[in-house]
């Protein structure tokens, strides 16, 4: 479904992404993990059209979408969330989600209906009239998810939708992501919360210094010495080897 091949992006002399390649197949949930500054968000930005890669290509559903502007990428069926939530602060929750819903319809009535459905789906049904800047962090993360989902994407790029949340909230988001996936949306997620990666993703890519250094099932990756050195550390690797937590 999504094929990223040989993607590079430099800022000045610094290579943020260095010939990175990854693939996401239809009906997958794939995770992209790696230490801070590895280039994960830059990679997302290149896929979503916010940055133009220097070399390499992004193909989606067999079509070359490399370097297209963000609204074209969205029209192809890729929606992204932002690592730092970017709500339309002075609009209500419903209005925020409606902006996404308007992607598929011109009619206000339809956009409202669609937005209400999606907002309920992510648990914001009770806060439709609340201004977005009054939401808690967890609420903002849900709003990011709802807005992206309202564009009715085929592929959802989730950039740390669980960062900063408490374990209960993380579990709730995991459940939501799973439900979204069950409706046929393919998901590529950047995540530091390993609990989420393990319980959601069948496969994970590890990005370090702009390079993909490993890929495979999360548990297999946890045993990879390169990954342990670059990212996980020995303690976390040992815990992860014991398998998913009882959640």
């Amino acid at each position, binding site marked *: 479904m999504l094929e990223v091949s040989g993607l590079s992006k430099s800022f000045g002399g610094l290579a943020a992404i260095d010939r990175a390649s990854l693939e996401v197949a239809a009906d997958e949930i794939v995770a992209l993990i790696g230490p801070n500054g590895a280039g994960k968000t830059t990679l997302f930005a290149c896929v979503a059209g916010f940055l133009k890669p220097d070399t390499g290509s992004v193909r989606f559903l067999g079509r070359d979408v490399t370097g297209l502007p963000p609204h074209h990428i969205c029209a192809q069926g890729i929606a992204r969330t*932002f690592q730092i939530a970017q709500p*339309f*602060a002075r*609009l209500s929750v419903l209005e925020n989600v409606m902006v996404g819903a308007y992607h598929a319809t011109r009619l206000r009535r339809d956009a409202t209906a669609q937005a209400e459905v999606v907002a309920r789906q992510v648990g914001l049904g009770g806060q439709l009239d609340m201004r977005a800047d009054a939401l808690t962090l967890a609420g903002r993360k849900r709003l990011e998810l709802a807005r992206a989902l*309202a564009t009715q994407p085929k592929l959802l790029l989730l950039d740390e939708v669980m960062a900063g949340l408490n374990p209960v909230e993380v579990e709730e988001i995991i459940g939501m992501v799973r439900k979204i996936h069950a409706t046929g949306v393919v998901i590529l997620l950047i995540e530091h919360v390993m609990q989420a990666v393990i319980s959601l993703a069948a496969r994970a890519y590890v990005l370090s210094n702009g390079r993909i250094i490993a890929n495979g099932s999360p548990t297999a990756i946890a045993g990879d010495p390169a990954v342990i050195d670059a990212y996980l550390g020995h303690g976390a690797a040992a815990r992860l080897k014991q398998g998913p937590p009882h959640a």
Partner: protein
Amino acid sequence: MTRRGLTLTGLSVLVLIAYPWVFSSNYAINLGFLVLFAAYLGQTWNIAGGFAGQTSFGHVVFFGVGAYVSTILQTAYGVNPWIAWLFAALGGALLGWIVGVLSYRAGLKGAYFALITLAVAEVGRIVANSVPITKGGLGILLQADPRPANFQFRDPVWFYYIVLALCLLSLLTAWQLTRTRFGARLAAIRENEDAAQALGIDSLREKVKCLTLSGGLCGAGGTVYVQKYLYIDPSIAFGVDKSVEMLLVSMIGGAGTVLGPLIGSGLLHVVGEVTRDLGNMLPGVSNAQPLSLIVYGALLIAIVAWLPDGLMGLFRKRRKEARRA
């Protein structure tokens, strides 16, 4: 808009229609004209600056271009002023499109966009001062020939009603922005352009559309001004004071709200009239203009400090508190 909002708006419209019958002096009707005219121009600013967050410091340029287009078409080419009016709107729209495409393609946002509009208005003033077709600094005098076919009227009440109609048109346009996809997209761009793009919005296109619309409406205002006063010169057409007034009435009333510019304009003119009378009473003040400017300035500071959402924001807060109680 809520049911209450609709009722209030309907009532205000009735009051505005009845106003010339109740206050029929020339003074009162001209004051009404000025209030509505500033509200109209303010609304054209508000469509770009309030709803889409495209703050302009030189919105007068669209007014000025509209004023010159229709005036030159009449005086130099003998075009009927009603038809010239249409071209004035088209001229304003075209300029809006050009300014939008050039500055947004270059990625100019926020303060940079504001400065570009300021510069464009200055360029307009300098050009109008120096090319023969505008008769330079002398300005253009329209020959007085008050006939409706000429878009000139002996009774000032006609201009009152014309500008009232324009005002209603602009209110309707603004109201549409609160309930259409186009409006939702502009609000999204105003609040967070990156996020808007991620949700499939072609922000460049929407912003250019918005500025074209705003410029066209503003240009139509230019014609009305010249038809009423029968004179235009570069400092009227491109003077910074009109740009400031447009932004001031919107911000005082509430930028990005439908009724904001009308309320702001009403307040500003009432304050202006009162300070003029006060100024005349004060000993040693021969020209009341500076006094009203001081009061405008103080008003703006107070609004920005305590009511960033303008008077409409105050009403809204009141209503919310009332609901809670």
